[in-house]
């Protein structure tokens, strides 16, 4: 009887491939990581942290976000309380320019270098583009912070307009694996999102693209998503965890177990060794305080501080105190990670 050859431990492989050579894990390798037993979690997080420190450094990029236009969205993203197609308690609202500037000032005070203006739309119309242009100009005149935008799908003219305004990064999440996307959104396609991202990159803006974990995807699809992102090579990947919103089709889904969320954080770091990997929405309900610390020591090198678009987060001071405790400096304006 012949014995099957011993399988190389995936963490040993990752140490050599990702940590030493800076080459991200493949989809199949990420799947192996996601399938690790929980008793390997600490080793996995430690390796992801080493990878982050070696290829990104100790700095943490801090960002604040604001909803410029809330609710009433015509799209049916099943996780989103801002869709006008669901019986969600979130009502439509527009933010005025003085309030937008004030929010940017609040964000800058926390030490953040990024401020992202978000609108719940399929894509911006002329009214929204005018509001964004006025808002970006007002912020640039009064606040020392970099401005990012997230306004849905864009056409080439809008991409060019945003680049000309000085928007340095554009967020547009692919949200989930290509194979799972039709279970999450039916009113537009994954490919339409990809097209916007391609135009954003070609216009010279930084690409911010991530998604939400815990939307019913399989581990295989989570690994597929990491490979989709690796192919895109975004400058930043925000990782959200589903916070089930009342009235949405995903309102009754279970919150992702903390160990699974942390394994995913580390796995995405091993797939994307050089990207800015940001803790985003849902981390409070999924991970709690202890989990947040473990995530920052498990591959994360950026955070959204304070509140989110329609929900509340930890007070910014808690995250900033944690970064201080961990001796992780906040990235200064105009530094690169």
């Amino acid at each position: 009887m012949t014995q099957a050859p011993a399988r190389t431990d995936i963490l040993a492989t990752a140490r050599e491939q990702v940590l030493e050579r800076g080459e991200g894990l493949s989809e199949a390798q990420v799947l192996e990581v996601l399938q690790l037993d929980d008793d390997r979690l600490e080793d996995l997080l430690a390796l992801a942290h080493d990878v982050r420190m070696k290829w990104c450094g100790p700095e943490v990029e801090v960002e604040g976000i604001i909803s410029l236009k809330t609710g009433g969205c015509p799209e049916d993203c099943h996780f989103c309380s801002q869709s006008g197609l669901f019986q969600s308690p979130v009502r439509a609202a527009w933010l005025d320019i003085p309030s937008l500037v004030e929010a940017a000032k609040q964000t800058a005070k926390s030490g953040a270098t990024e401020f992202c203006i978000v609108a719940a739309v399929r894509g911006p119309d002329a009214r929204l583009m005018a509001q964004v242009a006025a808002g970006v100009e007002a912020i640039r005149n009064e606040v020392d912070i970099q401005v990012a935008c997230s306004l849905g799908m864009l056409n080439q003219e809008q991409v060019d307009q945003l680049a000309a305004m000085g928007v340095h990064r554009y967020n547009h999440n692919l949200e989930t694996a290509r194979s799972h996307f039709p279970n999450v959104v039916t009113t537009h396609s994954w490919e339409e999102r990809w097209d916007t991202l391609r135009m954003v990159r070609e216009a010279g803006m930084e690409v911010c693209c991530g998604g939400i974990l815990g939307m019913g995807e399989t581990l295989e699809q989570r690994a597929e998503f990491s490979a989709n992102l690796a192919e895109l090579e975004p400058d930043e990947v925000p990782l959200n965890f589903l916070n089930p919103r009342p009235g949405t089709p995903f309102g009754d889904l279970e919150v992702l177990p903390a160990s699974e969320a942390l394994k995913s954080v580390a796995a995405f770091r091993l797939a994307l060794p050089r990207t800015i990997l940001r803790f985003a929405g849902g981390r409070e309900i999924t991970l709690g305080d202890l989990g947040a610390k473990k995530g920052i020591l498990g591959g994360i090198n950026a955070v959204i501080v304070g509140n989110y678009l329609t929900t509340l987060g930890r007070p910014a001071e808690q995250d900033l105190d944690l970064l201080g405790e961990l001796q992780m400096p906040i990235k200064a304006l105009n530094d690169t990670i």
Partner: protein
Amino acid sequence: MTSSVAMDEQYNPYTGRRVVEGHDDVVPTAAQLGLEPPRFCEQCGRRMVVQVSPDGWWAKCSRHGVIDSADLERR
């Protein structure tokens, strides 16, 4: 004819349901953790317009006006 709301009626700010003594309403987990701004007016149960900002929120009821997290000294 408009219906009047009794002065002592109260509504759950997270579900909009009327608070009835002895009948606990299910409060969403995120609200229990302090991660949710109010969505419904506590005085009349109307859905409010809510704006969240990086360090606070305000919520406006068309009948009962605006409440601001800064005034409530809570997030």
